[in-house]
């Protein structure tokens, strides 16, 4: 058995010694050139056809059929496979349908017909209740196909499509069977299951490439799915019909309207949960030596709740911008233990937020974000998180044999300070290629322990017992925006990131990814992110404004056509 290397292993086993830097995003390497942020003629972005994600489809079915009818589909729709989360291409995050997807939608469509009979509110509210009669007349059938079909297709049906659907309905032996068949066909139709963008006027983009000026309904779809993860509501479809989505002003009005809805708030909150990887946060071990007076039960949940409350307050109540989000000392701990970690009294909703000390500014120094792995601060994981998630650096994982080789070479280190251990392990090539970027971020945060408490001394645990205490060394130099920056604490690092261009740019990119469920892939995508970045940096755009600009912009109206 290898010697115990707990603290080292937490770090070295999970991170990278070989890295790459994206060449098309020069700011990622700290070489930000303001000129690269100008996009005079980016052209239209190619947007690959993709299916609706599970979340999008569930929201769409709920809005299409009504809450009660959708509730009847839990068994059938329940087998629709979940999607991946994180950053990736369309193929990685929303891969093609599988047999399980297809089977789920066939049985869901079948069940939807009976669910609508039991809960016909979605039909009644739009005047289509007659379709459930024993013998609906032709006008009723056409109105149902035309009206309900507009919501299924998320655009008006053409006359040919109406005729085709009506004929299919009438071919059934009786109206009830016709209704079932139409619902089954609609719920398995490509128009419902894919984001189809083929309607509009063909044109050329700024580079002279063939492009499509999207129809207002396609624009409505883009806006709605980005902000609510669901189909356009009636107000949006009606705005499209009135031509109000032909202009940026009209779109922005709809965007701001949607941002007031609960679903859009969930989307924004979901962005922060994903960005901070809160789902991956570890539990708090029941160890009195580590807890040092705290109770493990419920502590992690309370920390995560405070983090999300902070986000909600910054976005919706304070109208904060990125700098404020990343540097405010406001704290929102409703839990007494978490309040104790901040050194403040518990906060109650509706009251002003207490202020933590200057050592703890911003989102990244929340206890819920800093939570380590068991007794360890997991410093390299913190550094990797900062580099990947906050600064959009790209890293690869190190080969096992190199990791094990280094572990064997360095021998027993576990009573040394974490910084010394990591510098010994990663200071040489090839490890230092990436760790020269990871480690400074990790070391600066070492003035917070594994439970996110501010500290002056590092306690070293071995097998759950404190075996050494060391003074901290959090002074580092790191590259930000192409310059070398010196910081000596987590707070200094937080402020440096809060004021950096790369921090703003990465935030814009992460918002892009979350709302579109894909990484930026074209010059037009990167250009859009640069515009959002500039809006935040130069124009004082709030976090909410960043979401607005991310959605409501010129790129919204076009799609690049394949040559």
């Amino acid at each position, binding site marked *: 058995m290898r010697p115990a290397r707990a603290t080292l292993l937490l770090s070295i*086993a999970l991170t990278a010694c070989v890295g790459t830097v994206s060449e098309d995003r020069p700011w990622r390497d700290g070489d930000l050139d303001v000129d690269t942020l100008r996009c005079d003629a980016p052209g239209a972005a190619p947007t690959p056809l993709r299916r609706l994600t599970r979340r999008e489809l569930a929201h769409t079915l709920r809005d299409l059929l009504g809450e009660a009818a959708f509730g009847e589909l839990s068994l059938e729709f329940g087998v629709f496979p979940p999607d991946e989360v994180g950053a990736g291409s369309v193929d990685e*995050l929303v891969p093609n349908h599988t047999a*399980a997807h297809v089977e789920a939608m066939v049985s869901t469509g079948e069940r939807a017909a009976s669910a609508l009979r039991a809960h016909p509110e979605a039909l009644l509210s739009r005047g289509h209740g007659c379709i459930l009669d024993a013998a609906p007349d032709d006008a009723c059938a056409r109105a149902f196909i035309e009206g309900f079909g507009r919501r299924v297709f998320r655009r008006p049906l053409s006359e040919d499509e109406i005729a085709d659907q009506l004929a299919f309905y009438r071919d059934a032996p009786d109206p009830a069977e016709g209704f079932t068949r139409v619902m089954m066909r609609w719920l398995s139709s490509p128009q419902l299951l894919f984001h189809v963008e083929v309607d509009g006027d063909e044109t050329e983009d700024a580079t002279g490439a063939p492009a499509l000026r999207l129809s207002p309904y396609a624009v409505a779809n883009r806006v709605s799915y980005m902000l609510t993860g669901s189909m356009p509501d009636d107000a949006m479809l009606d705005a499209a019909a009135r031509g109000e989505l032909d202009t940026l002003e009209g779109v922005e009005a709809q965007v701001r309207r949607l941002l007031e809805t609960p679903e859009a708030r969930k989307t924004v909150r979901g962005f922060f949960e994903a960005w901070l990887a809160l789902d991956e946060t*570890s539990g708090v071990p029941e160890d009195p030596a580590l807890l040092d007076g705290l109770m493990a039960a419920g502590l992690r949940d309370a920390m995560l709740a405070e983090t999300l409350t902070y986000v909600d307050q910054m976005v919706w109540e304070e109208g904060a911008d990125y700098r404020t989000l990343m540097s405010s000392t406001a704290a929102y701990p409703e839990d007494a233990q978490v309040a104790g970690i901040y050194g403040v009294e518990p906060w109650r909703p509706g009251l002003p937020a207490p202020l933590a000390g200057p050592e703890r500014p911003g989102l990244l120094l929340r206890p819920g974000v800093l939570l380590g792995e068991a007794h360890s601060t997991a410093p390299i994981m913190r550094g990797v998180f900062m580099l990947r998630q906050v600064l959009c650096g790209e890293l690869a994982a190190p080969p096992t044999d190199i990791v094990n*080789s280094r572990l*064997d070479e360095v021998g027993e280190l576990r009573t040394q300070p974490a910084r010394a251990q990591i510098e010994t392990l990663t200071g040489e090539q090839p490890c230092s290629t990436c760790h020269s970027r990871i480690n400074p971020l990790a070391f600066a945060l070492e003035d917070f322990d594994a439970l996110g408490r501010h500290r002056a001394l590092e306690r070293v645990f071995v*097998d759950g017992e404190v075996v050494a205490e060391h003074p901290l060394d959090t002074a580092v130099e790191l590259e930000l925006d192409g310059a070398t920056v010196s910081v000596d604490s987590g707070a200094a690092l937080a402020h440096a990131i809060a004021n950096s261009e790369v921090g703003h740019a990465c935030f814009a990119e992460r918002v892009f990814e979350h709302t579109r469920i894909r990484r930026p892939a074209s010059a037009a995508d990167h250009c859009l992110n640069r515009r959002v970045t500039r809006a935040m940096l130069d124009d004082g755009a709030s976090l909410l404004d960043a979401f607005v600009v991310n959605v409501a912009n010129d790129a919204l109206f076009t799609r690049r056509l394949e040559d």
Partner: protein
Amino acid sequence: MTDRPERRLARRAFLRGAGGFALAIPFLPSLLGSRVAADASTSRRFVGVFSLNGQFEANWHPDMTGASRVAPNTLSRSLTDIEGPISNVIGSQFDGLRDKITLLRGLDGLTETGHNRCFPLTASTHTEGGMERGSAPFFPYSVDAVLEHAPSFYTTPPVLGAMRLSPMLRRYDGELRAGESFSWWTEDGVTTRLPVQSDAEVVFRQVFAGSEPSDGPDPNARRQLVIDRVKDDLDRLRTNPRLGSQDRERLSNYADHLRDLQTRLSAAGSITCTGPDVTYVEDAEAMYTNHIDLLVAALACGITRVGTLFIKHVRADGEEAGFHSNSHLRGPDAERTSASHNAFIATRVAELLSKMDALVEPDGNTLLDNSLVLWGNELGDGGSHGQLDMPMLLAGSACGHIRTGVALDYRSEEGVTWTTGGTRLGRPYSMLLTTAMAAMGLSHHEWELGDGPGFGDHQKLGHRYAKGGGWDRYADAHREMLPHLWMG
């Protein structure tokens, strides 16, 4: 616990495949004693069971005192010779199964570190590094999917190519977390992580539960008719010149699945069975029992011949109990904690094996005898978070092709250590998967799906095996079986 009421589904439900056909042959011991109906399938089955975060070697491996050298670099010890529990994890739950299981030691992957959750069934790592569990494997085919698609394995279309189960668990915030998949398949250049089914009740309803025959329209005929029209809709859309070639490929993929479903709807009508007794509760043990019953039932009555099951430790209050942090630690406390977590998982595995062993098939073998069950993990030793010395338990002999009742240690006797001072290397992990596929009757022509000979990263990383130190003997072992395990 939530206030969700316990729901019990119909005990004698009709089996229903995707087509909703009513079926009739009972198969469970509770309904028919221990003998399965004569026309139930007796073909070989494959089941992959997975858990997370590796094993402490002191917890997992048995004492090999008195082991015999049965082949070069291969030690063997009979499990029935071991007094007391086989190991801290393989405890008394397996006492009645000792002659039906095999423990393996010394199977290695020279991978990049990290939770390569694709590894157990692909012998490959994720393309975006070990931490990115979502990115595709370098070798994007898992054994279960290979079997599912192999013409020699399924000579007629199955109701389900594979039943992949991973219970939905409750997270810290009360939300349900969908199950995870370890399975991958690539077709037409598109790699897909194959979905799992997470809700026992849903699976039951889909596969086993049914409704009384009605006088209404034939649901199968209706589905065929509707799917025909959806395919027409797809054909029209695919011809739209404003779509790109990749867009059209995505629509074609969807159309292909619709066609496959139509084929399976036609095939499914000939299978008969009744479903197990499924109780839906938010109780961890009952939840896993439901999934195990469903899987055993599906295997026993020919609904599928391939299954996977992902097991996590779930606390008594229903919340999943992560023990990732502990896997990084060392020392007696960490070992004990890991053993208790894994004992929960081991008990579920033993339950699966015992139920498979209770079903006697027409050839006189039990369902377990006619199967190969592989319990694996995405990590070897949790501390290094790599894929060295993967802890593997096999069960069933796959109709006599796999040796059981022994612990086999493949670590080199020559002190081959690669670059790791603490790990004595053995043989490429991919040899286990090639052995498994041979046990299922596949030739290498059916599983060499990549760019060259071999399976998994053995293709890509052959140069690492050939790096010297004695392990180079395996650099070209692309199609070799594990000695003494493979019975021919």
